[in-house]
């Protein structure tokens, strides 16, 4: 889903200026902006800590398995594609297909979550934990807080499916708002993946 798509959709329903510029509930973008600032501060704190103890961070980072991070990223990016398709189908009036894409999104999100838990368990069994090093402290914190956002994302998907299930509800605005939340959580993951797994 893009801002341009939102523009076309809202122009069609005669939304005001603000609604034309933002897909879904314009107020939701307050969340996106403030939460992005909060995550940016987490990232800055991580990068600062990394510059202070570069060798220790590099050594601790080697405990992570790159392909797990790549697989998790693929799962979440595919889930973003699925929810964008869900919004497109909703706009086209294909509500049954939209529901299917919503379930695909939830399934991919659940697969990501299961893989993340398996990764945590594997690391803990290998002797790494929240307190084992500064890097692991950041790793478990960033991936944990992201997982908390993902759990709320499942609630948003539940709202989305609930809206799609009944012809009397089906608010495009609510569906786009839930989708915006999901994309935001995915965006945070892309940065977390780049910082924790890729940058060595």
């Amino acid at each position: 889903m893009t801002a341009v798509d939102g523009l076309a959709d809202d122009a069609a329903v005669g939304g005001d200026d603000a609604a034309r510029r933002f897909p879904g509930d314009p107020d939701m973008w307050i969340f996106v902006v403030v939460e992005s600032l909060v995550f940016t501060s987490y990232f800055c704190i991580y990068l600062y800590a990394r510059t202070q103890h570069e060798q220790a961070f590099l050594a601790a980072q080697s405990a992570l398995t790159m392909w797990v991070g790549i697989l998790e990223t693929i799962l979440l990016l595919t889930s973003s594609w699925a929810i964008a398709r869900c919004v497109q189908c909703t706009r086209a009036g294909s509500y049954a297909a939209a529901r299917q894409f919503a379930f695909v999104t939830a399934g991919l999100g659940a697969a990501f979550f299961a893989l993340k838990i398996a990764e945590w368990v594997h690391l803990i069994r290998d002797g790494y934990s929240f307190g084992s090093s500064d890097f692991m402290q950041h790793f478990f914190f960033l991936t944990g807080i992201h997982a908390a956002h993902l759990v709320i994302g499942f609630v948003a998907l539940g709202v989305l499916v609930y809206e799609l299930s009944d012809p009397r509800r089906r608010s495009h605005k609510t569906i786009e708002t839930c989708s915006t939340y999901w994309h935001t959580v995915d965006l945070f993951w892309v940065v977390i993946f780049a910082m924790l797994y890729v940058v060595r």
Partner: protein
Amino acid sequence: MTQERGKLRGAKRELWLAWYVTVAFYGLYSVVFFALARAQPPGRPWLDPGQTVAWFADRHWGLLIGFGLIFVLGGFSAVALALITYSIRRMSVSPAYAYSYLILYAIAAIPGFMFICVAMTCGVMRPDLSPVTTQWLYDLGFLSFVGTMGVFLVGSLIWMVAILIDENGVLPRWFGYLSLVNALTEVVIAPSWIFQRGVLAYNGAIGFWVNVPVFGLYTVAFILLLRDFIRRDDLGTGPLPMPPPDVWGHAKRAVEAVGA
């Protein structure tokens, strides 16, 4: 008609009184904790017993006077809580939201607000205690104050859901989403129970410093929005006569003013 207007004015006066008490309470809270008692920002979690005794001695009168004021006037937090509860009752949602919020915050205020006052006052008034016990009181105070923010989490979520499903336009929807941000920053404080040093300790960059601006923004926002709500409230039961403030309209006008 005139009688009705008089009644409305009277009832509004009570709401305004509650709002000014709310402002006074948060003002007192900030002055006591940050300036008078200097209990915020939190001390270092890794002080040894001797350093903890020195910490208390350095703040002796500030802690006594500051927390004395809190013991006398801290009860006004109930008025602030009542005003928020009233705003939720004014929404088109089940009263269960308002009562859940009221009960949760009333209970949460004990570990999240009163424990630190009791522990710090005890530490400063009983210099005969062993340094190890004083250190225990110091840790209890800060851990209860910072580390129990999670108990406010469910309250924030209840308020968020009430705002988002409300059809009476009591508070703007963006504040509902801001409540979610606030709730999520309350989650990150939990690790302060584990770490004595680093970014997640109770004085850490993430454990404390990132959360302060979010909580400050959230508090200022709800105080101003409650003022706006009281202005618009007709003390009825349906939608409020005027809609909530249009944040996008304000933003657009600000951008246009800068452009001009």
